[in-house]
């Protein structure tokens, strides 16, 4: 069945594969995605039934990964994500922390992807209830999420905006990476999650921050920040290893609605960052609708943006997607894949605003 929706969003640089014409400026990401044609093949439906997914999700995996890799991804999604923590080396040396947790009966090994990451292989009791946790010595954080903050690469003295900051994994990591000497403005709309963010800031003993409860799309900041981090609200399709309900919880229409919100947030990010400044856009998902389509649409709207290569291990962005073609520059964006990188699924892209 062909499906399509028209929703508000942003302008877009996308082409139809069979008709390689640039869409007119002013077309929204959602109206563009409404031209997306995903028809679940018989193969996709069979695989979807076997692994318990919605068929369109499998058809998408077959499109961007091929059959063999799709099966590898689905198998990887069946094994739970190992518990990982980020050592707060602002307060404690990571080796010392690992030793102390080992003394308490935890089995710990370094996480090779992330310099401050530790994998908790076995735990005699919850890793979130140790005295070391209460001292602020670590944050319980998934590996892909850790890698996003490294890509932001914050420096001391910079003014940094985190647009969807709560509960605070990346926000605390930004301050950790700058030894609490950048100024972080952390914004989130949720009162409950903001409370958690404040608690984590206090627990991990960071002080160079301001928290603001607001809608990040409507802040009155113009060209104010050296770096902007946007880990956008997403379908969460990347965390199926932690939450298998995501295999069936979102329709394509839901994803397209989210893409419109994500594009709005990214457009706002462009207006907040200084000329020469960096935006890191991330979403905990594998879906190109929430990744390449969003970035591509914003690249079309803002001429002064460049895509920068990622430094972390990743799979490059897709340009051709069913009957759509994205901006070529999204090749430099990247994807973390559970079966390749051992992480949750993540889309990450670095955008630089030209001077």
């Amino acid at each position, binding site marked *: 069945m062909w499906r399509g929706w028209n929703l508000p969003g942003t302008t877009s640089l996308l082409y139809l594969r069979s008709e390689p014409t640039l869409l007119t400026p002013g077309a929204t990401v959602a109206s563009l995605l409404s031209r997306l044609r995903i028809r679940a093949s018989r193969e996709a439906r069979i695989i979807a039934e076997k692994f318990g997914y919605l068929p369109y999700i499998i058809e998408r995996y077959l499109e961007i990964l091929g059959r063999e890799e799709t099966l590898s991804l689905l198998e990887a999604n069946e094994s739970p994500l190992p518990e990982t923590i980020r050592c707060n080396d602002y307060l404690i040396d990571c080796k010392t922390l690992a030793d102390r947790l080992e003394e308490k009966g935890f089995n710990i090994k370094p996480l090779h992807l992330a310099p401050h990451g530790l994998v908790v292989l076995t735990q005699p009791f919850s890793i*979130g*209830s140790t*005295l070391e*946790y*209460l*001292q602020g010595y670590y944050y319980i954080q998934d590996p892909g999420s850790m890698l996003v903050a490294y890509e932001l690469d914050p420096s001391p003295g910079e*003014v940094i905006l985190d647009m969807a900051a709560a*509960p605070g994994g990346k926000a605390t990591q930004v301050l950790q990476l700058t030894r609490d000497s950048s*100024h972080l*403005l952390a914004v989130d709309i949720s009162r*409950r*999650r*903001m*409370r*958690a963010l*404040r*608690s*984590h*800031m*206090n*627990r991990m*003993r960071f*002080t*160079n*921050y*301001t*928290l*603001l*409860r607001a809608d990040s799309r409507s802040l*009155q*900041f113009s060209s*104010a920040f050296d770096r902007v981090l946007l880990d956008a609200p997403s379908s969460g399709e990347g965390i199926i290893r932690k939450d298998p309900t995501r295999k069936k919880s979102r329709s394509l229409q839901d994803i397209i609605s989210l893409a419109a919100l994500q594009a709005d947030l990214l457009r706002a990010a462009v207006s907040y960052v200084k000329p020469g400044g960096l935006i890191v856009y991330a979403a905990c998902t594998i879906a190109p609708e929430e990744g390449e389509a969003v970035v591509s649409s914003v690249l079309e709207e803002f001429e002064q943006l460049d895509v920068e290569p990622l430094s972390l291990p990743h799979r490059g962005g897709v340009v051709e997607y069913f009957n759509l073609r994205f901006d070529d520059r999204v090749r430099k964006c990247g994807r973390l894949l559970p079966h390749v990188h051992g992480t949750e699924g993540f889309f990450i892209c670095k955008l630089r605003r030209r001077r």
Partner: protein
Amino acid sequence: MQTKKKAVRMRKPSTGELVALRDQLSQLKLLGAVDLQRIRLLEITEGTYMDVFEVPSTYARLLEGRLAVRSPYASGFYVGVLDKPTLRFKPSIPLAFRACRLCGLTLDCHIVDERGALIFTYGKPVMPDKIINIAGNLAPVSSENGYCLGWGKPCRRDTIKYLCPQGDVGWYLRRGG
């Protein structure tokens, strides 16, 4: 009937508020631990207390200046709570961490053994058999291996003197999220 909308604002303290805060920090022997020049009060209209923050040094230039953020949710080092009508100060857990660095130097702190530390972080009183040192009044509480646990004060029942929690790091698990 028209209801008043609650408003949040971060503001500089009045002279009276600053004096009250200074005096109570002085009683805790923590006057040097907080930069009073950078104190701001986060106030909700019609609320009964104010959150006390030592805002970052960049705050005045950035947040009050260029970015004009008038009503943040929090900013900087959380010092504690100032009761609105009485101006009585209650120190925060982050302030306990600053204070713990002074234990054995300028501060007499409560010290408990490992078992006592666990009990304390559940927000429970610690009995004498698990106490290594008990200070005279409200003071930071530390474990024997140097972990800061919060604030405590001596309590007495009959002839038994024990340690009562007045804010412990277990709060981060119980309420913090």
